[in-house]
C-alpha cells in the first residue's frame, strides 16, 4: 500500500511540475506573440478597410429568443460599428419580439427569400427596414428549432464572406470588425477559416452608447475573480495556442468564420454548446480531407465585452457549460487526429490544452487522494499534500500577476481603490474559483462517461 501511495505521489508531483513548466512556456510564447502583434498594429491604418473594396463583407448572426427592456438599445450598438461592409441579421421565433422590432426599426416585408442551401425550420418572413440608414439590418422570422437552426437560417441568407455568431448580451467593440478582418487580409500562405478575438468581462467598466468610456473594476469580488481568470486564459495561453497550432480552445472568444467553408460543411450542427467550436472543427476536418492548410488566427485585442455573472449559482452553471464544451471538443479533436493521421504537433497541443484546461482537476484529485491517505494512514505523506497545495496556490498567484503585467499593454488600473480590489481578487481567486471549476469539470467528466 505504501509503495502504491509513493508511486501515486510521484505521478501527481511529476504531472504538477509538467503543467507548471508548460504553462510557463505557453505564457512566454503568448507574451512574445502579443508584443509582435501590438508592435505591428501601431503602424496600421485601419481606416483603409473602411473604403477598400478588398475588405471582406461580414455578417453578424444574432438569434434572439428572450425579450428585454434594453433590446432595441442592444441592437443599436450592433448597427453602429465602425465598418462599412457588414450586415446585421437578427433571427427570432418570438412574435412579441418581432412586433417590437418591426415598430422600432420601421421594418417591411422583403420579397427576397433566397433558396436554402442548408435545411432549416420554415422561414415565415424576412424583413428589411424602410429607412436607408438601416439598410444593413435584416430580420428573419422563423419557426423555432433551436439556436443552431436560427444560425443556419441566417447563414442561408447572409451575403458576407465571413460570419460572426453572437448574442445581445455581448457588446462588440466599435472597431471590432476592423480588427478581426485585418488578419485575413495579411495571410497569403494559409487558408484563414477563422479569426478569434477576445471576450472580456464588462462588469465595472463605464459604457456610453456602446463604447467603453472608462476602464474600471467591479465592486463584486466574484466578477473581478472571473475577470482575472479570463485574463490568464486570453493573455497567457490563447496567442500561444494560435502560434503553435490551428486547434484553438475557443472559450472567451468571438469568432469570425469563413462563410463559404461553413456552407461547405453544412453549417451549424445541433450541439448542446459551443456552436462555433463545433463548426470550426468540422471545417478543419473537411479542409484537411481536401488537402488544404486551414488556419485559425487569434488576436489579443478585446473585441467583445460580456457581463460576467455576479451570482454564484449562475457562475457554476456557466462553468459547467464551459467544462462540457471543453471535454467534448477534446474528444472530437483527438478522434479526428487519430482517424486522419495528423502529425504530432496538433495532437500534443490538444493533449496539453486539455491537461491545462483540466489542471485544476488533476491538482484537485491529487489533493483528495492525499487527504484520504492522510486520514487513513497517518502523516507520512502529509508533506506531499501541503507542498502541492502551496505550489498550486503560489503558482496561480504568479500567473495572475503575470497576466496583469501583460494587461498593462491594453488597460491599466492606476488608483488605490482599483489596486486594493485587484489584490483581493488575486489572493482569493485560487481558493474560490478553482474549487468551482474542479466541481464543474468533474461533473462534465461523469456526464461524458454517462453519455
Amino acid at each position, binding site marked *: 500500500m505504501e509503495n502504491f501511495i509513493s508511486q501515486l505521489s*510521484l505521478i501527481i508531483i511529476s504531472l504538477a511540475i509538467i503543467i507548471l513548466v508548460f504553462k510557463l512556456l505557453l505564457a512566454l510564447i503568448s507574451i512574445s506573440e502579443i508584443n509582435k502583434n501590438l508592435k505591428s498594429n501601431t503602424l496600421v491604418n485601419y481606416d483603409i478597410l473602411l473604403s477598400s*473594396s478588398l475588405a471582406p463583407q461580414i455578417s453578424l448572426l444574432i438569434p434572439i429568443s428572450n425579450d428585454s427592456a434594453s433590446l432595441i438599445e442592444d441592437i443599436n450598438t450592433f448597427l453602429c460599428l465602425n465598418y462599412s461592409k457588414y450586415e446585421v441579421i437578427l433571427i427570432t421565433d418570438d412574435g412579441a419580439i418581432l412586433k417590437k422590432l418591426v415598430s422600432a426599426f420601421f421594418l417591411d416585408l422583403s420579397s427576397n427569400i433566397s433558396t436554402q442551401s442548408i435545411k432549416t425550420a420554415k422561414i415565415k418572413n424576412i424583413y428589411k427596414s424602410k429607412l436607408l440608414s438601416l439598410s444593413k439590418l435584416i430580420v428573419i422570422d422563423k419557426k423555432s428549432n433551436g439556436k443552431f437552426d436560427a444560425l443556419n437560417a441566417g447563414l442561408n441568407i447572409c451575403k458576407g464572406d465571413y460570419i460572426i455568431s453572437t448574442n445581445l448580451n455581448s457588446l462588440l467593440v466599435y472597431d471590432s470588425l476592423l480588427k478581426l478582418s485585418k488578419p485575413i487580409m495579411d495571410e497569403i500562405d494559409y487558408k484563414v477559416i477563422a479569426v478569434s478575438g477576445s471576450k472580456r468581462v464588462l462588469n465595472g467598466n463605464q459604457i456610453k452608447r456602446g463604447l467603453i468610456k472608462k476602464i474600471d473594476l467591479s465592486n463584486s469580488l466574484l466578477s473581478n475573480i472571473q475577470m482575472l481568470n479570463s485574463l490568464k486564459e486570453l493573455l497567457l495561453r490563447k496567442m500561444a495556442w494560435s502560434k503553435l497550432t490551428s486547434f484553438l480552445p475557443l472559450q472567451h472568444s468571438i469568432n469570425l468564420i469563413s462563410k463559404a467553408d461553413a456552407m461547405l460543411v453544412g453549417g451549424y450542427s445541433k450541439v448542446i454548446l459551443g456552436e462555433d467550436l463545433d463548426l470550426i472543427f468540422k471545417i478543419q476536418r473537411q479542409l484537411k480531407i481536401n488537402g488544404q492548410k486551414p488556419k485559425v488566427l487569434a488576436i489579443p485585442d478585446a473585441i467583445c465585452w460580456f457581463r460576467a455573472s455576479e451570482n454564484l449559482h449562475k457562475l457554476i452553471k456557466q462553468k459547467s457549460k464551459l467544462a462540457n464544451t471543453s471535454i467534448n471538443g477534446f474528444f472530437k479533436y483527438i478522434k479526428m487526429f487519430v482517424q486522419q493521421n495528423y502529425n504530432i504537433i496538433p495532437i500534443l497541443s490538444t493533449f496539453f490544452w486539455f491537461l491545462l484546461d483540466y489542471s485544476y482537476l488533476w491538482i484537485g484529485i491529487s489533493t483528495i487522494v492525499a487527504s484520504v491517505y492522510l486520514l487513513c494512514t497517518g502523516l507520512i505523506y502529509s508533506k506531499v499534500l501541503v*507542498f502541492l497545495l502551496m505550489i498550486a496556490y503560489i503558482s496561480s498567484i504568479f500567473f495572475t500577476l503575470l497576466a496583469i503585467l501583460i494587461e498593462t499593454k491594453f488597460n491599466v488600473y492606476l488608483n488605490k481603490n482599483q489596486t486594493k480590489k485587484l489584490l483581493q481578487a488575486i489572493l482569493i481567486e485560487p481558493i474560490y474559483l478553482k474549487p468551482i471549476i474542479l466541481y464543474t469539470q468533474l461533473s462534465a467528466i461523469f456526464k461524458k462517461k454517462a453519455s
Partner: protein
Amino acid sequence: MNFIQVIKGEVMNIITSERFEELMIIVIIILLIAILIVSILYLLKISSIIDEGKKNDIYEGIVDAYLNDIETCTIKIEQVAINFIESPHFRDPLFRELMTKELINTHHYLTGLIKNRLQTFYFSSGLVNDSYLKLKSNDWHLQCKGINEFSEMDAISYYDDILSLRFNKNSQVRLQAVLSLIKLKGKNAYKDVSNFDYNVNRWAIANVIELIKDLPDNQIFDYNLMLNSNNDAVKIIGISLIEHFKLKTYEDELNTLKSDSVSSTMLKLQY
C-alpha cells in the same frame, strides 16, 4: 528501460527521503521570487506610465506653443527652430517624439505657406535626424516609423534611402517603403515600385490602391503600363483603380484581362 527505472528509483528516493522537503521548499522559494520579480516589474510599469502621462501633459502645452509660433508667420521659422533646439526639454527623446508626432499631424491637414513652414522647421530643428536614425536602425518597427515620418513630411531628399529598404526582408518595411515612395514621387515612382517577385497580400494591395486614389490628378499612374505589367499584383491594382475611377477607355483591355491571365489571381483575392 533500465534508464527509466533508474530515474524512477532516484525520484522515489527523493520523495521518501528528507531531501523531498528541501526540494519542495526550493520550488516554493523560486515561485515566491518569481512573484516578487513580476510584482516589481508591474510597479515599475505603472510608475513609468504615470511618469509618462505627467510628462506628456507638460510637453503637450510646450509643443502647442511651438506649433503656434510656426503657424504665426510673423516669427522667422529659423528662430522658432533655434528656440526649440535651445529648449531644456530638447534632450528628452519623448519630447522630440511628441513634437514630431504633432508636426506630422498638423502637416497632414494643412496646405500652403504654413505647410512649408512646418517642413522647414522639421529640417532645421534636427527632428529629421531622429527620423534618419530610425530609418537606419535594425529594428523593423523603428525603420517603418522613420520611413513614415519622411514621407509624411515630404522629405524627398531621402527618397534613395527609402528606396534601399524596398527589398527589405521584413514585409511591413517593404510595404511602408512602397507607400512612401509613391507618396513622395507619385507616378514617377512607378518604375521603382512595380518590379518585385515576392507574394503580396490583400492588405498591401488595399493600401497601395487607397494611396493612389488619393494622389492629385496630375500624379495618376499610367494604367497601360500597369495592365501590361508582368506582375499580377500590379495588374490587380491597375484594374481596381480603373474600376474605381470608372475609366471607360480601358474597358476592352479590362475585359480581356479579367477573362484570361489575371483571372486566376483575381480568384485568389476572393474570400
